[in-house]
C-alpha cells in the first residue's frame, strides 16, 4: 500500500475551509468525526492574581471547586471529587516544574486537599514532574491528575496536557520526530493508560509566543486568569491552541500561526484516539469573568 504523505498543500486545501484546521495545521479530513462532544470547563476570575503577580489561594480554590462541580454536575466539591477518586486510589499529581512558568503551589495545595477529602491518605498522594519514573507513588498509581500551565514550545508547538506526560517515558527523544507528532502515544504507556481522572490546563498567565529554543519573555505572557478543566486532554489542548491563535492575532495584528505547528494535538485524536480535537465536538462551558475572554 502506498504511504500517505501529508504535505503543506493538504494544509492549504483545508485552511480556507475550517478554522480548526488552520489552528492545528492539519487538513480537515484528518480530524475526528465523532458523534459525541467532549466537555471542557473554562473558569476565569479577575482577582485570582494580584498586582504583584501573587495568586490568591482562596480564589483559586473557589475557581477549581466551581469548575470541577460544574464539570460533573453537582453542587458539593467534596462529592464531586469522590466521582473521580476512590479512597483506595494511589494518586500521582503530574505537575510541571519549568522554572519560568511552573504549576503554582497554590493549585497543588487545593488538589491535595480535595483528594484527601475524597478519602485518600496523604501517604498515597504525591506531586512530581521529572522524577515520576523513580517515584513509588507514580509507579504504583491507580489514578493521575494532570496539571500544568499552557505555553508555546519550540519543538512541539505548544506544551499542554498531552505533552505533560513526556516524563513518563525513559526515552523522551523517541517522541520528538516530526515536531513531536506522536506525543499522544504517551498516553497508552502502561504507567499512565486509563489512569487520568482530571486534567487542569492552567491559563493564569499563559505564554503565547517565544523566540529561540527555550526562551521565556514575560512580554509574551498575559494575565488571562483562567483554568480549563476536563477529562479529555486533547480537548483541553485544542481549546488552549484556539486561545493562542486568537491571542496571537490580537497581539501581532495579523494571522500568526504557531511555529512549529502543534500538530500533535490533532494527531492525538485522529491517530492515537485519546480524545477530541475538533472544536465543533467540544462542549466549552464558560464560567466567571468574561472580559477579554477571546473564546466567544
Amino acid at each position, binding site marked *: 500500500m502506498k504511504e500517505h504523505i501529508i504535505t503543506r498543500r493538504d494544509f492549504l486545501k483545508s485552511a480556507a475551509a475550517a478554522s480548526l484546521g488552520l489552528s492545528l495545521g492539519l487538513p480537515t479530513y484528518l480530524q475526528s468525526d465523532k458523534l459525541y462532544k467532549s466537555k471542557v470547563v473554562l473558569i476565569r476570575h479577575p482577582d485570582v492574581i494580584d498586582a504583584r503577580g501573587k495568586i490568591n489561594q482562596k480564589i483559586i480554590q473557589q475557581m477549581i471547586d466551581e469548575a470541577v462541580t460544574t464539570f460533573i454536575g453537582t453542587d458539593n466539591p467534596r462529592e464531586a471529587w469522590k466521582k473521580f477518586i476512590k479512597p483506595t486510589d494511589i494518586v500521582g499529581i503530574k505537575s510541571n516544574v519549568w522554572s519560568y512558568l511552573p504549576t503554582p503551589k497554590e493549585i497543588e495545595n487545593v488538589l491535595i486537599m480535595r483528594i484527601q477529602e475524597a478519602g485518600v491518605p496523604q501517604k498515597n498522594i504525591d506531586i512530581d514532574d521529572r522524577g515520576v519514573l523513580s517515584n513509588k507513588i507514580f509507579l504504583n498509581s491507580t489514578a493521575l491528575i494532570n496539571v500544568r500551565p499552557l505555553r508555546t514550545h519550540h519543538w512541539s508547538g505548544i506544551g499542554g496536557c498531552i505533552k505533560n506526560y513526556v516524563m513518563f517515558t525513559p526515552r523522551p*527523544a523517541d517522541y520528538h520526530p516530526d515536531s513531536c*507528532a506522536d506525543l499522544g502515544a504517551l498516553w497508552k504507556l502502561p504507567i499512565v493508560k486509563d489512569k487520568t481522572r482530571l486534567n487542569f490546563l492552567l491559563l493564569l498567565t499563559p505564554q503565547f509566543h517565544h523566540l529561540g529554543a527555550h526562551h521565556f519573555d514575560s512580554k509574551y505572557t498575559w494575565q488571562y486568569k483562567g483554568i480549563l478543566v476536563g477529562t479529555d486532554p486533547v480537548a483541553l489542548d485544542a481549546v488552549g491552541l484556539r486561545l493562542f491563535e486568537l491571542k496571537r492575532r490580537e497581539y501581532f495584528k495579523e494571522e500568526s500561526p504557531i*511555529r512549529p505547528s502543534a500538530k500533535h494535538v490533532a494527531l492525538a485524536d485522529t491517530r492515537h484516539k485519546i480524545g477530541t480535537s475538533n472544536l465543533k465536538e467540544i462542549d466549552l462551558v464558560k464560567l466567571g469573568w468574561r472580559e477579554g475572554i477571546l473564546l466567544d
Partner: protein
Amino acid sequence: MIIIQTILLTLFMMTNQSNDSTKHSMVKLFPAEIQGWKPDGEMKYFKGDAIYDYINGAGEIYLCYNFNSVLVQRYLKKKKQEILLEIFDMGSSSNAFGIFTHTQSQGEELGIGQGAEYIPGLLSFWKDRYFICIRFENETPQLRKAAFAMGHKVAKAIASEGEKPEIIKYFTDQEFVQKSPPDSAVWGSIRYFFRYEILNQHFYVADKNILNLNDQTPSVLAQYSDDKSYILLVKYPNNELAMQSYKNFLTTYLPDAKNTNIVQTENGKWTGIQLEGRYVVIIFDANDIPSVENKFATIIRRIKE
C-alpha cells in the same frame, strides 16, 4: 581476544581523553568574573543525548545540528541576580552557524563573535565551532551590560574563527534578511540546516523526508524580503541523489505538474522546482510564473559562477 580487548581499551581511553580535552578547552572560555558576577556552583557538562537531561525536548534541535557537548555555568551577583552562560560545542563551525541561524529572530548585527543577536534576557552568538547563549531573567541595564561584557570576553577567548558553510555564499543579506519590527512574529533571516525536521520548523513542507535531507545535504531556506516567497536550496552528494529527490518532490508535492515544473498551489501562489547538477532549487509561494523563473535563473547563475 587479548588483542581485541587491548584495542577496545585503547579506543575507549582515546575517546575519554578526547572528551576531557574538549571539555578542558571549553572550561577555559568561561570568565572568572564579570562586573561583579562570579561563578556559583559547579559547571554542568552534557554530551550527546544527555542534552535531554538539560533542556528536554529542545535538545532535539541541537542534535539536528550534530551537537557535541555543552558546558553550563551559573554566575551570581549579590546572591540574587543570576546570569547563565552556556557554551555549546557544535563540532564544526558550519553546525555552530546553523544553530545560530535557526534561533535567529531579529537579524541585528552586534559585533560579538561571528554573528550575534540580543532579545530581552538572551544574548546569543557563534564563533568557530561554538554557539554561546547568555541568559538572565528580569532585564535591567546592569544585567544587559554584564551580559554583553561576558559575550565579548567569551568571544575574545575563542582564538580562531570558523568558515561558514559554502552554500551560504549564494545568498545575500540584501535579498533576504528582514529586520523584524519589535512586536512582529516574523522570524527573519537565512536558515542553514541539513535535516528536514529543521526545515519543517521554519516552513512546513511534508511530514516525511521527501527531499532526502541528511547530514550530507547542506541546505538553505530563505524568505525574499520583497514578495515574501521562499527559496530552498539543497546540495546533494551526487547528481543521482539530486535527480531522485527532484522527482520525488514532483511526485509528492506537485503531482498536478503536467509537463511543467511550476504549479499554482491552493493559496493562489506559485511553487516550482529546478534541478541543476547536484543542486535542487525550490521556490515556494511566488506571485507568478515569471517570478519563479527569475529566481531560478538568479540562483543558478550564482551556482555556475
